[in-house]
């Protein structure tokens, strides 16, 4: 057998090809070219011994769709491929993928550090609901990576960030944060939902785990909830005794040691075999199918999303009723240099801006638009608009709202794929009637 001394590295396919082909081969029996929807709960065993092998994880195969499903598997492999990761496990939502990640990583009493610039739902999940499980999150201002370093304690088991942060406009210095994580020997977990693997592959910079809410740009059409956890396979769980959930025999799985047995895909195997098995937040095969179909056009869609977003942001920046625009793709943004470094294809399509008229103007604007849809999602083909202070963030204090970038005057846009001039016209007429 030859190795690289005599043989060049294998051909590396590009992201547009992977988006269409990774994980999906024609069906071995029928030749079906598209991925079939395997709408089945369970799978027959060859015999009792085969069943035992499957339950013991001694062979690869299907038992029950709470654990694995052939349609969902195609999505998982495609996401692992697009992120340049080793393996992925899909979940019923991005939140479920986050739960699986921290359940696999932490024990009660453990800590992790999270950037305070996160999707609001993550702040609530980490700060309140995880706390009840004994998983303690310390939020820091990660725009300065030194704040992360200062927050690390012996109990810290992970660092969680969004590089392109929801609700947009802020970009973290990924390379510097990777360095902090490596020094502390804790995995760096990146929620890559806003960027998608087309605009940014955090693992190429050294991130260990990537999370996706596939509900957003990946699925892309506002049809299907879903989430995924992807591991790079490069984190050495056995370097010290900090990660017993990976390196010690697992009592919930007859004493199996996941890292030793499955190596560089041990983390996702455990998230699946214990997390999905015992908590059940699996992705449905139908949602996996819609998401697979969505991903096939991800590169083409993202190019248009970011072009439209930039045009809309530039229009808003020049509008007299707009007090500020927070889009890292604008030359005026303090994050423009980081955007050029980490997101050279574009700074995403979700961003915020402020209205001169404050809270009242915000409420009126979302009612005045007639092409943008007033709803709480992002990453749809349709352009979406939200006034966080009166909706998603209304339960927070003024202080919390400001820290989350959701002050009274803030409007969030998720710019879709419509004709650029139509989007600008809609916002213009809505603002002229304020």
């Amino acid at each position, binding site marked *: *057998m*030859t*190795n*690289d*001394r005599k*043989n*060049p*590295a*294998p051909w590396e*396919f590009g992201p547009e*090809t*992977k988006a269409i*082909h*990774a*994980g999906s*081969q*024609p*069906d*071995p029996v029928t*030749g079906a070219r598209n991925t079939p929807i395997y709408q089945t709960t369970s799978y027959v065993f060859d015999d009792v011994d*085969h069943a035992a*092998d499957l339950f*013991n*994880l*001694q*062979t*690869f*195969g*299907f038992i029950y769709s709470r654990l*694995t499903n*052939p349609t969902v*598997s*195609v999505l*998982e*492999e495609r996401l*692992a*491929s697009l992120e340049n*990761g*080793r*393996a*992925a*496990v*899909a979940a019923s939502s991005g939140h479920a993928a986050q739960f699986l990640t921290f359940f696999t990583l932490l024990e009660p009493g453990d800590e992790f550090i999270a950037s305070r610039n996160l999707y609001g739902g993550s702040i609530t999940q980490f700060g309140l609901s995880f706390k009840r499980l004994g998983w303690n999150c310390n939020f820091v201002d990660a725009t300065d990576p030194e704040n992360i370093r200062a927050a690390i304690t012996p109990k810290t088991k992970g660092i969680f960030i969004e590089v392109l942060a929801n609700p947009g406009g802020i970009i973290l210095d990924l390379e510097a944060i990777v360095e902090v994580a490596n020094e502390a020997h804790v995995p760096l977990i990146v929620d890559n939902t806003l960027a998608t693997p087309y605009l940014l592959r955090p693992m190429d910079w050294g991130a260990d785990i990537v999370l996706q809410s596939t509900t957003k740009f990946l699925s892309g059409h506002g049809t299907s909830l879903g989430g995924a956890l992807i591991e790079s396979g490069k984190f050495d769980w056995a370097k010290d005794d900090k990660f017993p959930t990976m390196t010690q*025999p697992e009592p919930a799985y*007859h*004493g*199996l*040691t996941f890292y*030793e*047995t499955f*190596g560089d*895909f041990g983390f*996702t*195997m455990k998230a*699946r075999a214990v997390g999905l098995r015992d908590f059940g937040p699996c992705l449905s095969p139908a949602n996996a199918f819609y998401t697979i179909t969505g991903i096939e056009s991800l590169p083409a869609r993202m190019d248009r999303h970011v072009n439209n977003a930039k045009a809309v942001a530039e229009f808003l920046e020049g509008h007299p009723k707009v007090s500020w625009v927070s889009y890292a793709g604008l030359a005026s943004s303090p994050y423009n240099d980081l955007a050029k470094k980490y997101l050279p294809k574009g700074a995403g399509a979700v961003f915020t801006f402020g209205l001169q008229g404050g809270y009242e103007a915000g409420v009126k604007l979302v009612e005045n638009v007639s092409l943008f849809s007033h709803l709480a999602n992002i990453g749809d083909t349709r352009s979406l608009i939200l006034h966080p202070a009166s909706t998603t963030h209304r339960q927070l204090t003024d202080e919390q709202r400001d820290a989350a970038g959701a002050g009274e005057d803030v409007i969030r846009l998720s710019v879709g794929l419509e004709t650029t001039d139509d989007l600008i016209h809609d916002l213009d007429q809505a603002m002229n009637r304020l």
Partner: protein
Amino acid sequence: MSNPPALHYDDADMAKLLRGVKTIAMVGASANWVRPSNFAMKYLLGKGYRVIPINPGQAGKEILGQMTYASLADAPGPIDMVDIFRASEAAGKSVDEALDVADEKGIQIIWMQLGVRNDEAAARAEAKGLTVIMDRCPKIEYGRLFGELGWSGVNSGIITSKRRKLG
């Protein structure tokens, strides 16, 4: 150890090799059913390979229904491939033991498990005309090349418009 260059093995060569092998001697096969070597052995038996466990502590007893031998020299031939479940440093000795009986048993392939790499021993085996694979698991490679590994969400790296071939 300084970082040696990454190992690349051609998928087509690897698939041909795994299709050609009939008998595997597994050095370091464990009788403990939750150990990785026992997992790999059970999987390979299930795929139709004859697997001969080599483990001095278990010699004369059966592992997964297969008679265990203390050494490669004791094991009956022919053996196509030796799969080594030992630490990288200890793997060198296992390779030399395999080379000592390579002609007699017909050994053509030395395979060192995932995480096991010994470039000096590999060079000795290659000099004798043997094929060497290091830092890979035959179970995982079999699953990857014949379409099973992706079922667990693992990135097989395979992109093709041809029908999936089952093992």
